[in-house]
């Protein structure tokens, strides 16, 4: 049991190292997420009261799209120079590859989310210190990454790799988006913990279900 964690960590560390040398994924999705936020300000007049009603929606659309972009990149870099084949030749369980990739995707998206969210709060003049929002972001990101890693590995092996991931990913994460938007709305309105608990439960349930399902299915996605 201890062995598998070492392997997962090794794969995660490899991704982290290559990301800190190229800074490819984090920079691109950060800029993208920021652009989505800015574009939304043109779509909705930020001066009116409408903005409070749509604020959490704006944040989650931006994070979801940034997430898709980031998840797409996780296997694109492996595809170049037959990196994926190299990974598959490693004497590790396929589940270890999945978890290593999952953790690195999670970390990349979280880094971006924790930069973009304060910017979002500042741009829309919302309260800055919202620790509960951090919890929602962490749980939702785990949900995104659990399905996203599976589908990203799948999409990379198809002919339409860039379109395939969003087509597969977006319908599946609908429950996470609904729950995250709703919970964020309640947090921004400073409602008590009890109100948002049910939404947190949905995200946690989604996370657990898809971590199990994806771990089981992953080996069927990358076998050649």
């Amino acid at each position, binding site marked *: 049991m201890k062995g598998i964690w070492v392997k997962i960590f090794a794969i995660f560390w490899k991704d982290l190292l290559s990301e800190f040398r190229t800074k490819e994924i984090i920079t691109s999705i950060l800029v993208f997420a920021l652009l989505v936020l800015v574009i939304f300000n043109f779509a909705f007049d930020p001066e009116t009261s409408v903005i409070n009603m749509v604020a959490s929606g704006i944040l989650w659309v931006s994070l979801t799209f940034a997430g898709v972009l980031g998840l797409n990149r996780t296997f694109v870099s492996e595809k170049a120079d037959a990196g994926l084949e190299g990974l598959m030749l490693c004497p590790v369980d396929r589940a270890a590859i999945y978890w290593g990739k999952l953790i690195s995707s999670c970390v990349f998206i979280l880094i971006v989310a924790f930069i973009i969210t304060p910017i979002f709060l500042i741009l829309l003049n919302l309260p800055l210190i919202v620790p509960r929002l951090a919890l929602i972001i962490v749980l939702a990101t785990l949900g995104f990454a659990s399905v996203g890693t599976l589908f990203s590995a799948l999409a990379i092996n198809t002919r339409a790799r860039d379109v395939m991931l969003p087509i597969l990913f977006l319908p599946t994460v609908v429950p996470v988006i*609904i729950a995250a938007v709703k919970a964020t709305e309640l947090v921004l309105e400073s409602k008590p913990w009890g109100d948002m608990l049910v939404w947190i439960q949905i995200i946690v349930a989604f996370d657990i279900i898809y971590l199990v399902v994806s771990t089981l299915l992953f080996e069927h996605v990358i076998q050649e």
Partner: protein
Amino acid sequence: MQSKYNIIKCCLAGLGLVLMVAALYLVFIYVPTDKHTGIIQRVFYFHVPLAWVSFLAFFIVFICGIFYLRRKTRTWDTIAHASAEVGIIFTTLVLITGPIWAKPVWGVWWTWDARLTATLVLWLAYIAYILVRNYAITKEQGARFAAVVGIVGFVDVPIVFLAVRLWRTQHPTTIVFEGGLTPAMLLTLLICIAAFTVLYILMVMQSNSLKSIEAELDSLSAVTRVD
């Protein structure tokens, strides 16, 4: 083997025809008009069986997907593929008949009710199922990927349903009849469900044999290309 399959198909076609004619008679002539919602309520006798068959179809996709990933037998994949195609057609019809009924009764074409949203998400997930298959590089890979998408998509539906139900709690639950089904209505509904289920089985069998012939043709043309 092949002839036996054809005999079953012919029997089912006969049965389906009888049931369809009976269903049409029951829906348009026999069953009394609902006194609250009027004539439009008759859409219900098509809408509910279509919805039932869509869920059945996707359940079959899910089960066949699991078996395919375990056994790697092509038959499981062919059934799953056929069932998904038929399922998409039926779900599309559900999404068309639904608004036709909803506009006069609810006053809106569409509402983000749990059932409606879950059906729409299911439909989108299975469009992706077909696309994955088409965009895969090899046939075998397409089958594997499709099975994965079929399983993930099916697992998703209850979670979507739950999330949307909590999200839109203010929406009234779907009331088709006030005071429940009369025996005549229940009979009509059951006959319609039977008719559409037979139609579904028949369409899957037909699509299944078409796909076997296609596979045979593929293997034959592969042989001739080598020569």
